[in-house]
């Protein structure tokens, strides 16, 4: 009795017992009981939970979705501060290591002679490429130091200091280009 209830056979058996069309009902009983029996359960150990979780974690997208943020003056300067800083530092490391390896090739006389022989357009372009990251990193670095000391830590402060950095960078870059 317990097994027929557990398998959900009680209504079918009752119907089979009182129905005139016994053959048809009997077929249904057999079919439904086979279907019920085919359900399988799987035993899991407690540590399998972690395995399943780890499999799910591999499917997850990486966070943060950097590209969903609108570029704003509040934060764009920060990443450009890093990019310009790394660029200038690569130049410092590159030249110093080059001089260390080949002091005869990268001595000041050769470097100045090489740069002096370049066309004016290349010289101006080169000065622009060097002056822009240097001035931006310098002024934006001061902006970061002001933030670190608790100044301009409002949306308005972030914008006004951002515009000040952009203005100072533009002016000093142009001035340095024509030095």
């Amino acid at each position, binding site marked *: 009795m317990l097994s027929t209830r557990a398998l959900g056979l009680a209504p079918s058996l009752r119907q089979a017992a009182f129905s005139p069309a016994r053959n048809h009902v009997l077929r249904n009983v057999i079919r439904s009981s086979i279907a019920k029996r085919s359900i399988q359960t799987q035993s899991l150990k407690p*540590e399998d*939970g*972690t395995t399943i*979780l*780890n499999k799910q*974690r*591999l499917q997850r997208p990486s966070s943060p979705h950097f590209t969903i943020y609108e570029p704003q003056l509040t934060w764009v300067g920060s990443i450009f501060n*890093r990019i310009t*800083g*790394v660029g*200038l*530092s690569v130049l*410092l*490391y590159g*030249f*110093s*290591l*080059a*001089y*260390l390896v080949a*002091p005869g090739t990268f*001595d*000041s006389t050769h*470097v*100045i*002679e090489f*740069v*002096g022989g370049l066309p004016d357009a290349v*010289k101006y372009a080169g*000065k622009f490429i060097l002056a822009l990251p240097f001035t931006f990193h*310098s002024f934006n*670095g*001061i902006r*970061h*130091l002001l933030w*670190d000391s608790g100044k301009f830590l409002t949306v308005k402060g972030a914008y006004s200091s951002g515009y000040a950095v952009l203005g100072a960078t533009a002016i000093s870059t142009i001035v*340095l280009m024509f*030095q």
Partner: protein
Amino acid sequence: MSLVAVPIYKGTVNDPTTFPPPSKTHGSYHWAFERLLSAALVPMTVTAFATSGTNYPLFDGILGLSLIIHSHIGFDSSIVDYLHPRKFPVLGPIIRWTLRAATVGTMVGVYQFNTNDIGLTELISKVWTA
């Protein structure tokens, strides 16, 4: 061990996250040192613009050393952010040690250049007007 580690749990979900031991050297002192060095670079750079490196080799040397330390900290922060050993167990340490070697090499190179040649400040000003 693969080159890129996958972001999966170590241990079970009930294990607490591990933290590095608290250290002022890696915390507040490091933070303050970075800021003081960055701030000090402003007057150093102005001085370098105003004077000649050849006449004041000490200024030139201090500026060169400060720029290298400032650069090293910047490179190191980038490695911590983008090539953390948690995700790059092989590549991260390789790049970190490459940076350390490059920094030592750069220090020797700048010292050689400042000692045997005209020095960084003088070089920049001469190249700029070449």
